[in-house]
């Protein structure tokens, strides 16, 4: 009887792993913003500035999940604020802006207002709508004066066959990428950055 216990234990572990992995299809969605896809854009037209990026704030109404699917919560594998913060840093660096905490020219504060995946079930297909709303504020580090407030909204919509289990997984990646591209190509943002005097060259 005792020889059977290891086999039962292994079966139990397998069962738990299956449930915590993809058995529950909504667990730990890995939303990504790959560095290889990041380009120099309009933001690179502004001279390099020393930017202090404050930790990204989560201002979503529901911070426990990004959506629900088949009765289960859809959650991200990493905190939403980390995902967005890393994407912003990648854009700033690729566009020649310097992330720093000292002798800064400008302070960038970002807040995630929405990061959600809506699922609309039809008869034989399902529509997924990913939405990222990011509020960005630029402020003067010395006076604290607000220089610019912008909201970037990235939405991605996709219809997948009911039988497909993977066609929806990168909808949030696309929504995030669109938000970041709008950020990097915003002429007002580039203009404010251009007007900032550098700490080195006042």
């Amino acid at each position: 009887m005792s020889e059977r216990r290891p086999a039962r234990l292994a079966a139990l572990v397998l069962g738990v792993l299956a449930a915590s992995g993809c058995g529950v299809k909504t667990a730990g969605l890995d939303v990504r913003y790959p560095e290889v896809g990041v380009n120099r854009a309009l933001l690179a037209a502004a001279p390099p500035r020393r930017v202090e990026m404050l930790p990204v704030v989560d201002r979503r109404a529901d911070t426990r999940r990004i959506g629900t699917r088949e009765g289960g919560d859809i959650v991200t594998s990493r905190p939403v604020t980390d995902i967005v913060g890393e994407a912003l840093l990648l854009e700033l660096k690729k566009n020649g802006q310097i992330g720093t905490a000292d002798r800064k020219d400008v302070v960038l504060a970002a807040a995630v207002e929405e990061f959600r995946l809506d699922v609309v079930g039809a008869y034989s297909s399902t529509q997924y709508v990913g939405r990222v709303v990011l509020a960005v504020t630029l402020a003067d580090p010395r006076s604290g004066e607000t220089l610019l407030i912008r909201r970037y909204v990235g939405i991605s919509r996709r219809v997948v066959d009911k039988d497909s289990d993977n066609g929806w997984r990168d909808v949030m990646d696309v929504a995030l990428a669109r938000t970041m591209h709008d950020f990097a190509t915003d002429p007002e943002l580039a203009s404010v950055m251009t007007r900032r005097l550098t700490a080195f060259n006042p």
Partner: protein
Amino acid sequence: MVRTIPAVLAFAALSLVGCASSSPPSRPTARPFDDVRRVIVVPSGGESAFAVVEYSPEPGRTFDEILKWISWSPYQAVLRPAAQLVHRGINWALEADRAATATSRLQGLSPRSVVAESVARTLEATGWFDEIRFVEREPSVEERRRADAIVRVAVPTWGLVRVRDVEAGLLSGFADVRGQMAMPRTGVVLWEESQDVTSPEQIPVETFLHDRDFARQEMIVVLERAGQRLANELLYSRSAGR
């Protein structure tokens, strides 16, 4: 037990691999075009189809329930596809009726022109180009000779779509748009992109169908947003790979 550990680890690894998003978003088709200074933006493509897409699960769901009651029937194999066809037919007719009403409210509004104008305005606002011109018709030989690139903008589909499961009667405007930038003399395509653009707002479909001014304003906002989105992707691709 020791022998089972590798199997457990392999299973765990495989189950986690499946949880990553399937692939990163595809990169737009583009090559660097930093030297493009004079651009003509022109509406292109055929007619734009207006659609009202509600993704209603009914009456198909009800048909499925009925089929479950008569699961003993030898005709199940035939009835199920027939039920799917009837479901599609009924919804197509309902949505086509609403689309026809909406189209009558939006007469005179050219989605391609609104999107193309918005693309031109967005590109111009960057100050990156010496000249951005929007023209309604195909550019003349002389205009082509002067331009470094021609951006063609098409809107195959636009309309209203349901974006949330719980809110019946509330839809969002959408426009599926395509853009292509090519060099006039060689025809070399410098950039190509498709975008599904959805309004962040939801609006009551009944108001949309009955209030002409409201409908037009809503769709103009969506189309202008589509133009900005397309232009932003073009700008983002300008130095691709550099």
